[in-house]
């Protein structure tokens, strides 16, 4: 036909992929059971890193103990780095399921799977509670505060320890509940293929799922409710971590935007990480027929918005302190932004804002599969710099019970054990994630199959366009 030559196509061929409903389940499960050789190499490397991290931790504990929080700054920084990424990651699935975005389908399981790292978060959090200074000043020197500034106001029984712990554990449990509920249909399907121990495990996890209409409805409502709880719980726990282990340790630092800023950084970095995983799966994992360019394209706009929001929040903090010109404000700016951690801040701003901004500004770049993941690489470095500057800074800011930061403290440089811990625990997190990917199919089988029902390429007049259906 003559007019077919004139079919207008506004997007490249690999923008949308249309996985076959019939074979998707079988294929995705068999890939989980028998991974490719690259997987094993990655597992060995990250396993070694985890071991180094543990060595660093033991060495740190043996040399410095848990009495003083100052030597644990880098440990806190890497904890916070991992916590902000893994804590917010499941929310990506929750959020875009809520907005009913079809493009989310390939990345929802990738993001939910981060919930498994809640275990690592809880384990890493325990030593931090041990080094947290008490609310009450054990011995008041000079004009020091009797009770330090804290979000607990010297308040409820057991605070801060029990409440902080409850928050981190609760979030981990809630995240895993989301993962379990979301993966249940896939695991029930996988049980049919698997053998031996794996079959038993899947049987246990899948429970009595047989896919009745009623079960699907419950699963849907359950995921929505758990998602809403998770969102609110996450904001709360991030508020605790940011203020308790950051702001409260710096004398006189009163900054109401810091918890929201922390949350924005976590949203930005977790979306970046997920896109990076998505890219790796597409490029080297052999999942091209399930992952088109469209998730990258749609998510890149959100990553761009988050990048700008981060800068906006940072600016709101900066301009208030700069304009206020109180001594404590000026010292805090010098400490975190310009003098002591000036270079770290530079890396932070360049990698978290300028580089991703100028990468994601261009629509042709956003339309490529590599655009957003490239920005993501920079964002992750920037996020690490953010955590180092804030938490190493906070842990080394001097006497917690002072009224104000009267002088600008010098920066704290990492020693060998700090480097071991930072590299080791990041590697360890990847290690655990890789292990979890052997149990749960890394792409959400039921969501991909469901998506195939509602997305089609169709002719409209003389063009060929995407048709997206929304069942409700």
């Amino acid at each position: 036909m003559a007019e077919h030559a004139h079919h207008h196509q506004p997007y490249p061929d690999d923008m949308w992929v249309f996985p076959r409903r019939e074979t998707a389940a079988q294929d995705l499960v068999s890939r989980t059971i028998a991974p490719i050789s690259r997987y094993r190499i990655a597992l060995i490397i990250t396993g070694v890193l985890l071991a180094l991290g543990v060595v660093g931790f033991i060495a740190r504990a043996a040399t410095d103990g848990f009495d003083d929080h100052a030597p644990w700054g880098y440990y806190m920084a890497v904890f916070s780095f991992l916590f902000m990424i893994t804590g917010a990651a499941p929310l990506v699935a929750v959020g875009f399921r809520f907005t009913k975005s079809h493009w989310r389908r390939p990345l929802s399981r990738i993001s939910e799977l981060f919930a498994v790292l809640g275990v690592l978060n809880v384990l890493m959090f325990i030593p931090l509670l041990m080094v947290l200074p008490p609310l009450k000043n054990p011995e008041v020197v000079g004009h020091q505060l009797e009770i330090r500034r804290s979000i607990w106001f010297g308040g409820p029984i057991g605070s801060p320890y029990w409440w902080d712990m409850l928050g981190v554990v609760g979030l981990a449990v809630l995240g895993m509940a989301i993962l379990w509920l979301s993966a249940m249909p896939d695991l029930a399907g996988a049980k049919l293929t698997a053998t031996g121990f794996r079959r038993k495990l899947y049987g246990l996890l899948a429970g009595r799922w047989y896919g009745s209409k009623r079960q699907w409805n419950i699963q849907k409502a359950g995921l929505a409710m758990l998602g809403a709880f998770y969102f609110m719980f996450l904001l709360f726990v991030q508020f605790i971590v940011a203020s308790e282990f950051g702001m409260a340790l710096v004398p006189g630092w009163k900054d109401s935007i810091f918890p929201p800023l922390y949350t924005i950084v976590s949203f930005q970095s977790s979306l970046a990480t997920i896109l990076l995983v998505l890219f790796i799966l597409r490029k080297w994992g052999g999942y091209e027929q399930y992952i088109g360019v469209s998730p990258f394209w749609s998510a890149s706009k959100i990553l761009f918005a988050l990048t700008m929001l981060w800068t906006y929040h940072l600016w709101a903090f900066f301009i208030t302190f700069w304009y206020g010109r109180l001594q404590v404000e000026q010292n805090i700016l010098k400490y975190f932004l310009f003098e002591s951690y000036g270079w770290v801040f530079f890396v932070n701003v360049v990698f978290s804002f300028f580089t991703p901004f100028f990468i994601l500004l261009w629509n042709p770049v956003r339309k490529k599969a590599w655009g957003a993941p490239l920005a993501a690489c920079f964002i992750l470095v920037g996020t690490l710099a953010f955590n180092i500057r804030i938490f190493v800074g906070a842990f080394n800011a001097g006497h917690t019970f002072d009224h104000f930061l009267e002088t600008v403290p010098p920066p704290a440089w990492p020693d060998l054990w700090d480097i071991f811990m930072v590299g080791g625990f990041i590697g360890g997190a990847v290690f655990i994630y890789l292990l979890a990917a052997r149990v749960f199919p890394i792409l959400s089988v039921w969501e991909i199959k469901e998506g195939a029902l509602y997305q089609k390429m169709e002719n409209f007049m003389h063009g060929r366009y995407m048709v997206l259906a929304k069942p409700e």
Partner: protein
Amino acid sequence: MPKLPVLGLFQDANNAADAGDALRQAGISDKDYDFLTDAPYPEGAFGERVEHHRLYIFPFIGAVLGLTSGVLLTSMTQMAYPLVQGGKPILSLPPMAIICYEGTMLGAILFTILGIMFESRLPSPKLGLYDTRITDGYIGVLVQCDEAQLGRVSGILTQAGAVDVKRQAAAAATA
């Protein structure tokens, strides 16, 4: 020889798109016909030519000009009237950045508007051959052709299913 306009009106959008194909097959360049509609159809729905443009340059030029004016305005007025306030330097970069930011955005937006006007060739002094039924959902296929081809083009349009074919003279009479 100047080209003359012919306007075919279609009730059905698919017919209008077919008319486009027929015109192309008849050797009329796709620069010489256009589709007039009452709403934006998806690009390529009529199999029409791809429109090239440089709109994206406009906001950048505007942004640069806006930023420059912002920098000049803030720095020069402050230096011309140096009054220290609250211990802040005369050339205080953070407040200047805020005004410069607004200037940049204003420049970018103003130039975008100019760019849109320029690229859509608006305002155009003369409406040309037109029919008010277009805003009621009819599709107009506006062809520019030599006088000799007028009859043939009208024929193609009618054959493709045009409910009405207008020529310049008729338009002049109604206008």
